[in-house]
């Protein structure tokens, strides 16, 4: 490694994640001459939104719809750009330039590919890590047969699988309705949609409606909603929800306000409460993050070019705050232009000039976003659930245990983590972090911004000890372990 330290970096730019932001960014950067590598964990490009875009077995294009197939348009430019594309690469670490080596500003990426780990040295990292479904903790959400709506959509895109038997969708947010619409197109029957959108959200969202009326989502969204509502039983105003069963899902139980408890026999329950930025890698790299009150989530802090607080690290797309696929694509290009500028390929004026059309397109794509965020904000009771609900799926820690820790003096999730192990399992807080923050905030009566989030560390994805052991090490690294 010491001889490598003096050699040229492997690439100018590594783009991590091949969803819309990553595809667009890598294509632009490589097209303008940066040696670029596009890394992604999945076997094919597309991210989650365009998952399996190159090889979906779903032949009928009407099932997944035109928004999905738009993703295919991003593949050609990537191919033509000359960017290296390494699918099947799991990035587990991004190490900042070392403080003790002021002359060396390169970043080291730890990645695993085909069961072998390696370090990649680059001048800049653009994280396009996208989103994941916001945890929707209800009693019984760990039962087999309960999946995320996003998960079900991935099964459709990658394998042409649709749920059979008795199927219930529950939650709120555009993806829930899109999935229902796709299922209807595919000929799959749904027993019910339990809509948890709080009625009060409409009042809050109404003032934001004018902007939404000019949104590209409006026409498509309204049509889709109407079609689903015409064909599926939709229960509005659901305020309580749980899944029941022994060893697997048997029934979904819900309540509307003061009404009586209702029970639906079910084989599959698909949950959705919107999406939140997938920030583990940025967090573990040391990027500052902030609480987004409108979207009720943490997001890494970025400037208007996607630059983070860490030198040499940018972020684009939903990983920097939820904006959707079209916005991600433009944000990816804008961030790539800034990287070109930072690496000395274009001057500031050229960067600004080139960004103009992308900024306009970004603005169009984000129009009406606030309306959606406000309307589909999940109710408090689902973000900070009742005591008996498991919040940390890995360590099986309940909301009640988190509240108990707060009473012992835990002021934030990191102390709660040491006390309870919540967030210490293999998912590394992805499925409990937002909930633990919300529970602590509610219990303390303060804003989540004050409570904070897990402080994460690499590896952000598990790697085997053998892979770790095979990495290059300096004499100093070895001495630090063996000579004492």
């Amino acid at each position, binding site marked *: 490694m010491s001889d490598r330290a003096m050699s040229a970096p492997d690439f100018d730019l590594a783009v991590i994640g091949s969803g819309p932001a990553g595809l667009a960014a890598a294509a632009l950067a490589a097209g303008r001459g940066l040696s670029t590598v596009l890394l992604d*964990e999945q*076997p094919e490009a597309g991210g*989650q939104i365009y998952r*399996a875009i190159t*090889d979906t*077995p*779903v*032949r*009928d294009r009407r*099932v997944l719809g035109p928004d999905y197939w738009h993703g295919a348009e991003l593949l050609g430019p990537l191919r033509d750009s000359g960017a290296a594309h390494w699918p099947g690469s799991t990035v587990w670490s991004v190490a900042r330039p070392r403080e003790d080596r002021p002359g060396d500003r390169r970043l080291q990426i730890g990645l695993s590919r085909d069961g072998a780990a390696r370090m990649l040295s680059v001048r800049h990292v653009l994280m396009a890590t996208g989103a*994941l*479904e916001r945890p929707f903790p209800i009693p019984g959400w*760990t*039962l*087999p*047969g*309960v*999946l*995320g709506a*996003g*998960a*079900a959509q*991935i*099964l459709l895109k*990658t*394998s*042409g*699988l*649709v*749920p*059979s*038997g008795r199927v219930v969708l529950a939650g709120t947010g555009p993806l829930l309705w899109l999935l229902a619409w796709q299922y209807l197109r*595919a*000929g799959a029957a749904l027993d019910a949609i339990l809509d948890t959108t709080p009625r009060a959200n409409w009042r809050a969202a109404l003032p934001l409606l004018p902007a939404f009326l000019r949104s590209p989502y409006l026409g498509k969204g309204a049509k889709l909603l109407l079609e689903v509502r015409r064909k599926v039983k939709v229960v509005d105003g659901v305020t309580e929800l749980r899944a029941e069963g022994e*060893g*697997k*899902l048997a029934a979904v139980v819900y309540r509307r306000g003061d009404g009586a408890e209702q029970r639906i026999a079910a*084989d*599959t329950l698909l949950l959705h409460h919107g999406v939140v930025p*997938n920030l583990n890698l940025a967090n573990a790299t040391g990027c500052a993050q902030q609480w987004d009150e409108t979207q009720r989530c943490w997001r890494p802090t970025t400037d208007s070019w996607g630059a983070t607080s860490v030198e040499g690290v940018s972020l684009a797309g939903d990983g920097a705050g939820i904006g959707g696929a079209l916005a991600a694509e433009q944000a990816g290009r804008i961030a790539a232009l800034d990287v070109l500028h930072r690496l000395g390929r274009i001057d500031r004026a050229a960067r600004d000039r080139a960004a103009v059309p992308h900024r306009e397109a970004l603005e169009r794509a984000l129009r009406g976003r606030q309306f959606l965020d406000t309307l589909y904000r999940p109710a408090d009771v689902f973000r900070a659930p009742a005591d008996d609900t498991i919040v940390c*799926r*890995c*360590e*099986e820690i309940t909301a009640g245990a988190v509240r108990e820790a707060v009473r012992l003096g835990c002021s934030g999730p990191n102390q709660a983590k040491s006390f309870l192990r919540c967030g210490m*399992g*293999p*998912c590394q807080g*992805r*499925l409990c972090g937002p909930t633990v923050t919300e529970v602590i905030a509610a219990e303390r009566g303060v804003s989540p911004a004050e409570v904070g989030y897990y402080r994460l560390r690499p590896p952000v*994805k598990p790697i085997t000890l053998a892979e770790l052991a095979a990495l290059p090490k300096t004499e100093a690294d070895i001495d630090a372990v063996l000579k004492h």
Partner: protein
Amino acid sequence: MFRRLPDIAGDRVSFTIDGRPAEARSGDSVAAALLANGVAACRNTPVSGAARGPYCMMGVCFDCLVTIDGTGNRQGCQVRVAPGMAVETQDGKREAGR
């Protein structure tokens, strides 16, 4: 559970689940292949022994952990099923050396 849409592309892939023959499509992840074969629960947790199955299908929840060709705790949703692959459901903690 889950069924395959008619008119679906892809080749048939034969593999085993706990030693029993099963069938999937090329392109399926192991987790998808399990669901397509009616296996919703693929493990019992090492903490309480509760049954779990695939939840996120995108590699973030680690609930679809299975033993694949003898190696424990692999993420079923991140591995593509391959002809002859031996998939085993798990009970509790993984064993060292497996």
